[in-house]
């Protein structure tokens, strides 16, 4: 899917300085990484890709749809995975949370159940269907959050530091899952290892897109910048 970001700047309500400034970029690679210092505008930029944040200037177009005015259609195509799995899980049990995204899609109860079971099995949560979601471990919660997003079949998955709260093993599991996904992925992270095999990496610094290129080059640029 083609993401077109054209002359985008963003000032939060009540803010003075733009937190994203004059970004122009076209993204259609399969694996796109975003790195940069704290507060450089990565999360704000990522939220623009599914219309959670609409830029105060410029346009973001996903698959030909302007996020300004077509937010809902865009979000049907673009899944978003947040850092904290605790606040992404909105239903009391594992099964209910996965089923949540399938409401109002004209599916019968049986179809929903079949899709949910399949998603749980695929993400290693099969035995936990009726488990209270809040009693899962952090890693299991993030896998549940991902299962709940992927069950709706988005074409693009945007992830904002999905592994920051996870241990090494669970980070590995999430990374492996990302590698195998058929979907296009945009991944924001401070873990530079995660973007190693990616097609393209963007570096943000103080609200600007300051570098754009293959991972080794971008990571070298970022290290230099932070030195």
């Amino acid at each position, binding site marked *: 899917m083609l993401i077109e970001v054209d002359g985008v700047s963003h000032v939060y309500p009540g803010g003075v300085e733009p937190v994203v400034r004059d970004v122009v970029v076209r993204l259609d690679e399969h694996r796109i990484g975003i790195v940069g210092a704290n507060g450089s505008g990565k999360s704000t930029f990522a939220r623009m890709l*599914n219309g*959670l944040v609409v830029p105060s200037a410029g346009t973001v177009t996903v698959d030909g749809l302007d996020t300004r005015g077509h937010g809902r259609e865009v979000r049907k195509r673009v899944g978003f995975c947040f850092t904290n799995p605790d*606040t992404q899980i909105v239903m009391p049990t594992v099964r209910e949370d996965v089923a949540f995204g399938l409401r109002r899609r004209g599916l019968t109860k049986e179809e929903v159940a079949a899709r949910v079971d399949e998603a749980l099995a695929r993400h290693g949560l099969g035995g936990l269907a*009726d488990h*209270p*979601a809040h009693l899962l471990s952090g890693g299991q919660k993030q896998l549940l959050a991902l299962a709940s997003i992927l069950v709706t079949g988005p074409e693009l998955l945007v992830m904002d530091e999905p592994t920051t709260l996870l241990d090494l093993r669970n980070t590995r599991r999430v990374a492996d899952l990302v590698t195998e996904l058929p979907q296009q992925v945009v991944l924001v992270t401070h873990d530079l290892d995660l973007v190693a095999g990616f097609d393209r990496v963007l570096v943000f610094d103080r609200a600007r897109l300051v570098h754009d290129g293959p991972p080794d080059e971008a990571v070298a640029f970022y290290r230099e910048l932070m030195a």
Partner: protein
Amino acid sequence: MSTSLGLYRPGTSPVHRTPAGVKLAVVVAAGIGSVFVRTPAVAGVLLAVVLVAYTVARTPPGLLWHSVRPLCWVLVPLMVFQVLTAGWARASVIVGVIVTLVLLANLVTLTTRTTELVDVVVRLAAPLRFLGVDPERVGLVLNLGIRGVPLVLELATEVREAQHARGQAASARAFAVPLIVGALRRSDEIGEALAARGFDD
């Protein structure tokens, strides 16, 4: 973390398979009917019936104690008071009826998925459609509320631990402020996650 909320335990017993609406109706009927219980014998029979239902549902006995224990603080003084003022018979009727009702309600939550209970409420709310209320939203709000309980409890534990770690004495304000700020931040994040998952209609 353990909460005293009875959590659903999967099972296939007849109690599990009874429709949620019927179980809720039984709880309501028992609540109303309890007013008319006059003798210890009747109270005893009702308690026995509930205990049999627990056995049928194959609930571990530990859970029985778990659901009654928090009530001891109320029940023991109540029992003493009633024995002194109204005598043994009256006291055992009152305490027996309360224990029976609590156990019954707990049995329902142990054997019924939250979704099914919420579905019953959604169906009961259907007539409200005429007033512009969307029953499905009512259900979602209930689910979010249920989901929110452990979230707030965890947050409260975190805040308390952070205070202890900093060697602060318990203070209501030092507890309330981070708790409220934390709860608001989390509810912002949940709102964002809901929107990202297509619930922005």
